[in-house]
């Protein structure tokens, strides 16, 4: 008798601790992926540098000084100066702001679009689902760089347009994920139960379906940030992305299309290239760690 009365109390207290415990195990699982922890740390440092660029940068990133034309690294200019005598290190720090915000902004846009379209497709099904999914196939089957350079050339190259264009084209994988979650969860017992007690659709979606879809979306969005940064770098490198004098890692590299700079002034192109690689690598390892921590089933 006493056992019967204590059991519910115990399970209730267990229920109460579910939330923190899950977070604890999440972190402890994530921590096991050492590379991912390093990635997270590196990314945080880069974000800090980007935010604190005005405080940390030794010079004004746009101040032109023709007497300091293409100086190699020295005590005053740690990473040398560029063709207009601007301090490369300061430009790199400011460029981190641009490149990281393109990554975050573009992904934020397509996560919203993808979640809405995927949710609509998964919830309504039928021809709406068909139209949205065929549209997704079409966007996915076309090389995005071609569509992006076409759109950017029309809208004009700028930070905002690069964010918009990458954001407008990135939604299909998210839409597929969310739609998939809708389809599988729609028939699950807890959703059926909630529907049978008369919960409205909006509440079911918000309380039961979205929370379950967040895991794959977060992982996908993390990897997406890395590819958005790569895309922005490529576009800016081609001269179709962020426009000078605003510095982005890609448009600093644009100078390396000149053979003289490539051959004789590696300080002008190696550091921005390295910055891209480090940032993208950090985000990708972070994504890998998150995937392992959030979904232990997908462990390789």
């Amino acid at each position, binding site marked *: 008798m006493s056992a019967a009365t204590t059991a519910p109390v115990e399970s209730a207290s267990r229920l109460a601790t579910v939330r923190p415990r899950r977070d604890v195990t999440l972190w402890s699982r994530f921590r096991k992926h050492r590379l991912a922890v390093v990635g997270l740390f590196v990314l945080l440092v880069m974000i800090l540098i980007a935010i604190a660029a005005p405080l940390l940068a030794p010079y004004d990133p746009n101040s032109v000084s023709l007497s300091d034309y293409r100086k190699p690294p020295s005590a005053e200019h740690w990473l040398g100066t560029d063709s207009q005598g601007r301090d490369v290190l300061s430009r790199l720090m400011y460029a981190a702001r641009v490149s990281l915000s393109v990554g975050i902004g573009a992904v934020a846009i397509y996560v919203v679009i993808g979640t809405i379209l995927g949710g609509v497709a998964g919830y309504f099904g039928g021809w709406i689902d068909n139209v949205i999914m065929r549209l997704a196939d*079409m966007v*996915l*089957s*076309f*090389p*995005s*760089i*071609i*569509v992006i*350079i*076409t*759109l*950017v*050339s*029309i809208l004009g190259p700028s930070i905002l347009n690069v964010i918009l264009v990458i954001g407008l084209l990135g939604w299909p994988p998210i839409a597929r994920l969310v739609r998939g979650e809708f389809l599988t969860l729609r028939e699950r017992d807890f959703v059926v139960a909630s529907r049978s007690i008369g919960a409205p659709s909006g509440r079911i979606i918000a309380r039961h379906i979205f929370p379950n879809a967040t895991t794959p979306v977060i992982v996908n969005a993390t990897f997406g940030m*890395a590819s958005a940064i*790569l895309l922005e*770098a*490529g576009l800016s*490198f*081609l*001269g*179709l992305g962020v426009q000078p004098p605003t510095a982005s890692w*890609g448009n600093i*590299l644009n100078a*390396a*299309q000149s*053979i003289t700079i*490539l*051959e004789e002034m*590696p300080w002008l*192109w190696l550091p921005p*290239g390295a910055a*891209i*690689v480090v940032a*993208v*690598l950090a985000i*990708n*390892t972070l994504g*890998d760690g998150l995937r392992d921590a959030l979904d232990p089933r997908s462990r390789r």
Partner: protein
Amino acid sequence: MAQFLLRRLLISIPVLLGITVAMYVIINLAPGDPVTALMNPEQMANLGPEWVEQQRESLGLNDPAPIRYLKWLRETATGNLGYSFVDRLPVTEKIGERIWPTLQLMLVVLVIAVVVGVPLGIVSALKQYSFFDYLLTVLGFLTVSIPSFFLGLVMIYVFSLKLDWLPANGMYTVGQPRTFTDSLSYLILPATVLGLAQAAPIIRYTRASMLETIRQDYVTVARSKGLSETRIVTGHSLRNALIPIITIIALNVPSLLGGTVIIEQVFGWPGMGSLAIASVLGRDYNVLMGINLVIAIMILLSNLLADTIYALADPRIKYA
């Protein structure tokens, strides 16, 4: 089989039309005017607005967008893709001379990716969780994290400028008779850069696919019959593992095409990618539209090819 191919082709047509409509809508949203974009302000001031209007009329730019699209479509069906706004050359001619370099580059890249990717994927699967497997995972991470143009620049720096082993720019030595070795020397760097990037997904999928097949019952049966490990791997496991890899290669054609755009620019390769960038910068809509069409057709054909090979390779798939 013929029926299967025909049906697949028919399904591709609406997709193709959809892509061209989408591209046409996008291009027509452009605020830029190809007539004024082409002329220097001085000339425009001298010849006056009537001349600009006349130019615009003669280029057919005054019709409403849907009519222009239909006109374009009718011409396309008869093989006329219009003329470049920039140099007045037929678009088909401009693309025609650029398509072979791109196809050549893509083919070599695919060969490199498969020759590198499939064996590494197999070894990685057979030695799952070994140091080698781990190393490949790390290398795979690196290749997806390095922008191809940056890797290209590093390769030019090392192999062209410092070591002077390979040329950095172009497709063949100008002013010399074209020889195979000469062309090859120009191809090595761009093809290697793209090939490495393309090998990464092939390694991953070969590994996953092999891991799946080596756990199948028929492999256990083969092993219990006392077949040698090499025969099991090549004859039983690999044969079945390769089927999904065909799909992965076809699905990667868009990313391969996208990759050529930037790499062609870095290595001065005279292909469709560098033409696309030139026409974007010059607002040469007809050329851009033509390139998009050619790319759409190439992608649909590669999907069709993959479906066909898939159906031929796997007797479980009925193509009725």
